[in-house]
């Protein structure tokens, strides 16, 4: 039987870019050649209510929904939604929350969803170029620069730091994410 997929739950409030963030992540995984499924509920949630989106990728994904308590990563854009989504997170899962971002350094408060994807990107073995390409594909051109900056802020490195920091980030990967799958 194929290995278990990587499960990511992205949560927040309507209007915060939850679905955009999950679209970008799904695009990165799809472009890397994985089987991918992404699922969420639209509708009433768009009126400022709680929103969450499930992204699963791996050799083979069946259910489009992350089973309760099986999220490897819970990325929450609104701090008050952490408790609401806590049950999604697996025992060895990792919470990614706004507190991990220096919000004052964000070029635009609205791009915090992408900054948190930057944090997530540290733990997933997709090359930074794949993330940048997915941001390009999923956002209008006038928002590219702001979101690249936000992504790098979350990732903890600038575009020029890649050469020097790649060694470090690989070590971080191995320590924190034994289960992250090799592309």
């Amino acid at each position: 039987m194929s290995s278990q997929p990587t499960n990511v739950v992205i949560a927040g409030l309507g209007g915060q870019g939850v679905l955009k963030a999950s679209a970008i992540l799904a695009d990165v995984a799809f472009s890397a050649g994985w089987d991918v499924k992404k699922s969420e509920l639209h509708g009433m949630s768009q009126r400022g209510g709680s929103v969450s989106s499930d992204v699963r990728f791996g050799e083979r994904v069946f259910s489009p929904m992350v089973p309760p308590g099986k999220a490897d990563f819970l990325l929450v854009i609104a701090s008050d939604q952490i408790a609401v989504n806590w049950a999604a997170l697996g025992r060895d899962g990792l919470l990614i929350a706004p507190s991990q971002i220096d919000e004052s350094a964000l070029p635009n408060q609205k791009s915090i969803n992408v900054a948190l994807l930057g944090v997530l990107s540290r733990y997933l073995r997709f090359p930074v170029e794949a993330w940048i390409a997915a941001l390009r594909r999923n956002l209008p051109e006038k928002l590219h620069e702001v979101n690249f900056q936000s992504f790098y802020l979350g990732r903890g490195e600038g575009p020029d730091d890649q050469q020097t920091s790649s060694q470090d980030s690989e070590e971080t990967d191995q320590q924190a994410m034994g289960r992250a799958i090799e592309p």
Partner: protein
Amino acid sequence: MDFLQQQDALALLSGDEAVALAAFEAGVKLGTGYPGTPSTEILETFEKLGGRAQWSPNEKVALEVGVGVAFAGARALVTMKHVGLNVAADPLFTVAYTRLDGALIIVSADDPGMASSQNEQDNRRYALAAGVPMLEPADSQEAYEFTLRAIEISERWQLPVLLRMTTRVCHSKTIVRRGTVAIPPPHAPHFEHDFPSRVMIPAYAKPAHRRLRQRLAEIAAWNDEAENVETRDGQTGNGAAENGQAGLNQLVSGSKSLGIITSGVAFQHVREVAPEASVLKLGLTYPLPLEIMRKFASSVERCVVIEEGDPYLVEGARTAGIEVEGKPESFRFGELNTARVRRILEGDTTPEPKPAPGKPPALCPGCPHRSVYAVLKELDCIVAGDIGCYSLGVLPPFEAMDTLVCMGAAIGVGLGLRHSLPPEEAKRVVSVLGDSTFVHSGITGLVEMVYNPPPSGHVLVILDNGTTAMTGMQEHPGTGRTLSHAQTGKVIFEDLARSVGVRNVHVIDPTQEPEKFQKLIQECLDLPELSVVIARRDCLLATRAIREYERCHEQPAN
């Protein structure tokens, strides 16, 4: 669209997008429908791909237009959410008797768990009740392929076909490989008189009903044929995305001790939870392939049916004398997921963990509906409400909506309350519905109000925010713009109300003039006459787009 520009055959698409792509590739002449979660994106995507798509006033009209397209020999795609099929049920049941020259595909997007609906009816019952073949895709690959297969079936048997999807198929994105199903090109549209096939007077409808049952028997036999059961290795299973063309029905070989019959997205949960089980996944679920089911059930020690919603497959199997195990009644409610499927298989009926309550949605800050509800609450009105963003008026801080049943019901229910309540209560009753909802099903209610007015009169408030906001800013006949935002004929609500005989018709911006609005409502309530108040102010989220559309019309490109 991005995925059409890609030369690569693979794309990550939602089920809705996959249906649209297949319809476009199949040369569907016209897509019609009414917006409704989770179906809305089908027509929007079809239009973006270059197809011709139209929003109709409601699903009944959308289906009737589709019937005409198919009578002309062309291919029609008609989309709606599950409750929309109730509205379209009248044409559905009789078009099944007719002979189509083209194809008629009706998409019913069901919402088990009611993520965004007023009920969780299981529209597989409609296929059975109306006698319409039904396909149930389990992911986007199947949504793509089954749309094409549905067109093929519709043209082969000259019948409408129901493509029954659910929220998790419509809105989940999964990988689609294009070009996996080849179907014949569409016919050239033409018309030939054929009275017995298309004029359902009793003399022609009696033989037509027999003809329908005959065709359904043929389809049932065909569904049981081996060509429609694809056998898959349990180790790889569900290889749709990698292998292309999934059979209409799939048999995943596995353990003899546990066999599972399933359909739709439940198949995905089953494969994840019980990878060792033998699985019969049904795609053409009306008429059912009963002999395949019988053979499968007798080949395993325990045969469990895992299906979302009503026990449709269970009842179908048992009626045919096939012994299967169903799910406990508690799993009839809500969506299934892997945890619930595990419980069903283990016979675990202990209380399920309740999900943590999230933040409920609310009317946007600055939403014009807020101004209306503040007044209705202040005046202690009894509010017969309706379906749209403004349904949120029932929640705090307003708590100013007393009834919600179905599209357009605000008017009829309001009138019924007025007819029955004691005078002091009757005069506080107000019917409230949105602009798109008014066009959908409120116009006949307006006529009822004029025809059978209550002694106390009545007050109808149309919340006209210039868009179908709830489903994501779709146009409707009251905006004067088509699905693709081009200028077209416009229904003027105030003119319509006056023309049917309402004398007190007012148009007001409730946000700009809140005091005047409150005074107006009070006056209308005090009057034992009929009043229509159009509370007109564009939805905040749509204002910019509306301004842009209007600017484009004023300055046509040369």
